[in-house]
C-alpha cells in the first residue's frame, strides 16, 4: 500500500462516517429544511361557506405541523367553474410543489390537472372528484355513504309518521356537474327505494333559487319529506318550509352544518343533517401532501367520514367542535 492511497482511504472512511452521523440524525429528524409550497385551489373563496373555512383551518394546522407554505386561490363563487380552470392554469405557472384541488366540475378540470402533471406537479383532490386518473390521492367524504345515511334517516322518520304508505320525497340538489351532488343523490335514492321520489331539482348553489323552487314544488305536489344535498340547498329548502309555516310538519334532512342549519335543527325545522369532517379533510389532505413531498407513499383514497347529526346528539361534546368550529383567534 502506498502512502497516498492510505490517505485516500482515510478520507473516504471519514466521508462515510460523516454521512453516517448525519443520517443517524436525519433518521430521527425528518428533513423540513426547505419549505415546500402547496397551492390550494378551492371551489369558492368569497361566498361565506363555513365548510371551506373549516377545511382551511385544518389545512393550516397540518401545514404548521409539517412546515409547509400554503396559498389559497379559487373563484369567489362555486358556480364560476371556468374561472376556477383559469386560476388553476395561472397557479400552475407559479410552479408550486403540489396542488390540492377541490374540483368545481367533473370534466372541466381534467385538462388543468393534465397540465400540472406535465409540469411534474402532483395533484391531490379533495371533496369532489374529477374524471382524471392522474391525481395521487383523493381525500373526501364517501358521498354515497353520506347520501345513504341521509336517506336511511328520512326513511325512519317517514315510517314513524306515515307507516301505512310510502312517502313522497323531493330532492334539492346543488349541481348537475359536481360529483358530490351526483353521489349523494344516488346514495339517497338507494336508501329510499321503498319510497317515491318525485324528482330532483337543481338550485345551482343559489339560495334564492332553492327557496323559490321549494315554494313552487310545495304548491304543486303533496310532499312528505325533503332532502337538501348541501348547505345552500338545505338552507333554501328550510327557509321556504319555515316561511310557509310548515317547520316540523314536512321533515327535512340536509347536509353540512352552517350556523343557521344548527338553529333549524335545534328548533325542529331540520330533522337531521349529515355532516362531513371538513377539518379532517383539510388536515389529512395537507398531511398527505407533506408525506408525498417527503417521498413517502400516500393513500390513493382517504374517506374522511360523515356523521348524522340530530337534535339529540348535536350538543354532545364530541360533536360540538365539529358542528360549531372554534372561531379564529386574533393574531393567528
Amino acid at each position, binding site marked *: *500500500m502506498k*502512502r497516498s492511497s*492510505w*490517505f485516500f482511504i*482515510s*478520507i473516504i*472512511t*471519514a*466521508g462515510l*462516517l*460523516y454521512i453516517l*452521523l*448525519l443520517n443517524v*440524525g436525519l433518521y*430521527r*429528524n*425528518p*428533513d*423540513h*429544511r426547505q419549505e415546500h409550497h402547496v397551492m390550494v385551489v378551492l371551489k369558492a373563496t368569497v361566498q361565506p361557506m363555513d365548510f371551506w373555512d373549516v377545511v382551511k383551518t*385544518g389545512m393550516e*394546522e397540518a401545514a*404548521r*405541523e409539517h*412546515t409547509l407554505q400554503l396559498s389559497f386561490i379559487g373563484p369567489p363563487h362555486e358556480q364560476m367553474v371556468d374561472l376556477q380552470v383559469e386560476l388553476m392554469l395561472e397557479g400552475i405557472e407559479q410552479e408550486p410543489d403540489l396542488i390540492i384541488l377541490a374540483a368545481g366540475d367533473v370534466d372541466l378540470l381534467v385538462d388543468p390537472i393534465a397540465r400540472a402533471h406535465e409540469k411534474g406537479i402532483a395533484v391531490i383532490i379533495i371533496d369532489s372528484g374529477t374524471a382524471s386518473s392522474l391525481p395521487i390521492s383523493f381525500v373526501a367524504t364517501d358521498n354515497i355513504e353520506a347520501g345513504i345515511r341521509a336517506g336511511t334517516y328520512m326513511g325512519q322518520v317517514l315510517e314513524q309518521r306515515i307507516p301505512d304508505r310510502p312517502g313522497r320525497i323531493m330532492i334539492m340538489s346543488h349541481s348537475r356537474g359536481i360529483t358530490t351532488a351526483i353521489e349523494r343523490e344516488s346514495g339517497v335514492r338507494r336508501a329510499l327505494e321503498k319510497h317515491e321520489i318525485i324528482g330532483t331539482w337543481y338550485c345551482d348553489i343559489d339560495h334564492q333559487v332553492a327557496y323559490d323552487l321549494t315554494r313552487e314544488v310545495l304548491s304543486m305536489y303533496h310532499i312528505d319529506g325533503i332532502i337538501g344535498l348541501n348547505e345552500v340547498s338545505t338552507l333554501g329548502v328550510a327557509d321556504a318550509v319555515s316561511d310557509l309555516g310548515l317547520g316540523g310538519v314536512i321533515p327535512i334532512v340536509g347536509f353540512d352544518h352552517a*350556523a*343557521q342549519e*344548527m*338553529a333549524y335543527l*335545534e*328548533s325542529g325545522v331540520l330533522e337531521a343533517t349529515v355532516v362531513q*369532517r371538513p*377539518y*379532517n379533510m383539510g*388536515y*389529512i389532505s395537507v398531511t398527505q401532501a407533506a408525506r408525498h413531498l417527503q417521498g413517502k407513499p400516500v393513500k390513493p383514497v382517504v374517506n374522511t*367520514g360523515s356523521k348524522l347529526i340530530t*337534535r339529540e346528539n348535536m*350538543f354532545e*361534546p*364530541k*360533536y*360540538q*367542535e*365539529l*358542528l*360549531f368550529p*372554534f*372561531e379564529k*383567534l386574533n393574531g*393567528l
Partner: protein
Amino acid sequence: MIRRFFSFFSTLESRTYYIFTLLILMTILSTQLISYNYTQRSLIDVTNTQKGYTMERLAYQIDTYMTTMEQIAHTVIDSDEIQQYFTRSGQNDSVDGDAVSQYLASFLRAREDITTIALFGFDGTRITSSSDQQVSPFSHVEQQQWYQNAVHNPGRTIISSAHVQNLFFGIYPWVVSMSMTFHDQITDEPLGVLLVDLNFNRIRELSQPVMQDPPEYIFILDSHGDYVFHPQQQLVYSGITTEPTESLMEMTDRSDPLEVSGKSYITRQAQSADWRIVCVTELYGSMGQWRYIQAAYATIGLIAFIVVGLVANLLSRSITHPIKELCAVMKSVDRHNFNITAEIDSTVEIQQLADEFNIMVRKIRGLIDQIHHEQELKRKSELKALQAQINPHFLYNTLDSIIWMSEMDRNREVVLMTSALARLFRISISKGREIITVREELLHVESYLTIQKMRYRDHFSYSIEVDESLHAYPCLKIILQPLVENAIYHGLKTVEYKGLIKISGFIQDDRIILQVIDNGVGMDPLLLERLISDSSARKQLRSSSGVGLHNVHERLRLYFGEPYGLTCSCTPGERTVISVIMPATPPMEEDL
C-alpha cells in the same frame, strides 16, 4: 479475497495504522454519540424546565382568572339587586326586571370576556344579562350539566369544560360555564343557580403555544380526563390524533416529562378549575438547533477523523520507517558489504537496535579481516616453505660436485664453484628480505648458471643481456632461478646439441619484463600454461620443477597483484620464452 486482506494486513505499518485508526474511530464515534445524546438530553431538559415555568405561569393565570370570576359571581349573588329580586319577586313587583338585567349587563361591559350572566330561580324566575333576548325554549336549562352539578353541590363553584352554549336561540358561542347555587342571605335558603359564561377564547388565547420551534401545543383535560380543550379537537374525537390521557391523569406537577411516541408531555394542575394543562412538544421535530448541533458534531467528527487518520499514518510510519531503513542496511550486508554503519535517527529502542547491529557488523568485519590476514600469512609461509624446498636438493648436488672436483684436485674450479655457491646463498638469504634489486637477482641467477654450467660440463652456454638502467629497480627475489632451472631440466638436459639460455630484460609501459629464453626441446604450451597457473598440474608432472614455475607465478601475484605474473610463448623444437612481468616501481636505495 481473505488472503488478499490478510496480506494487506500483514505489514507492521498497515497493522499499526488500521488498529490505531479503528480504535480511535470507535473512540470518536462513541464519544460523539454519547456527547450528542447528552447534549440532546440536556437541551430537552432545559426546554422542559423552561416549559415547566411557562406552564406554571399559565396555570397561575388560569387560577387567577377563575378566582376573579368567582369573586365577580359572589359580588353578583350577594348584591342587593339580586337578593331583593329573588326574595321578593313572588310577592312584590317593586324590583324591575329590566333594572336587574341592566345591573348584570354592567359586569359584561366591564369584563369583555364574560359572555353571559344568568340566574335561574328554583321558582322559575329567570333573569339574564341581555334584556332583549329570551332564553331559548330549546335550551332545557334544568337538564344541563352545569345546572345539575351546581344543584347537587350547593354552595360550591362548578366550572364546566369548554362547550357550546345554546342558551339563546341561534347563537352558539364557545364558553366555559361557572355555576353555583345562590342563597337568601338571611335565611340561607337556596334560591336558584347562577351561571357565568366565560368566553372560551380568553382561555384559548392563554393556551396558545409560546414557542414555534420546536413545535408544541397545549391542551387541557378536566378532572375526569375528558378534554376541556384541544387545538385539534376534531382529530382527537375522530381518533386521528390520540393523547395518552390515562397516563397523563396519573402525573403530578413534579413528575418527569412523559415521553410517548416522540412527544414529550408536561402537565400542570390549575387548582381552581381542577384542570390539567398539558404541554406537548415534539421531541425530535424540525428543530433548527438540532440540525445545527448535528452538523457541528458531524463536522467535528470529520475533522477529528482526518487528523487522526493523518496522525495514525505518521505514527505508524515513524515506527516502521526506521525499521525499514535498518532492513535496507541489513540487505546490503547480505550483499557482502560490511563497510557500512546504520545511521538511523529514531526512537531509543530502534537506535539501540541499530547500534547493536553496527557493533555486530563491525565485529564481523574485524573477524573477516582477521581471517583474510591469517590466510595471507598462511599462504606466504607455505610459499616460503616451497621456496626453501628447492635449495637443499640443489645444495646436495652442488656439494657432491665440489667433493668430486676436490678429489680430482681441480682446485681452480672448486674455488669458482664454491664462491658462486656462496654468492648464491648470500643473495638467497638477503637478510630475510623479499625484495632485492634486479642487479642482485641477475647476480643470483648468474651464480646458479655458473654452477650448473660446470656441473653439466658446458653442455649449454648462457648470455645475460639486461640493460644497466634496469639494475636499480626492485625485484622479487629468486624468480629467475626457477625459470632457468626449468629451462635446463625440461629444455636442454636431453638435447644432443649445445643448448643456449638467454636472459634479457626491458621496460615496457611501466612494467619490467624479464625473459628466460632457451632453445631446448621446449614444452607443450598448454602444459606450460597449466604449470604456471594451476598448482594441481604439477602433480601430473611428478617433478618438483613444476612447483618452481607455479611458485614464482603465485609469489608475483601475491606481491604485485592480478595483472602481473608469468607468461610464456613457445615454439616446440625451436625455443621457449618465459616472461616475468613486474611493475616498474622507482629504483630504491641500495643498502646492500
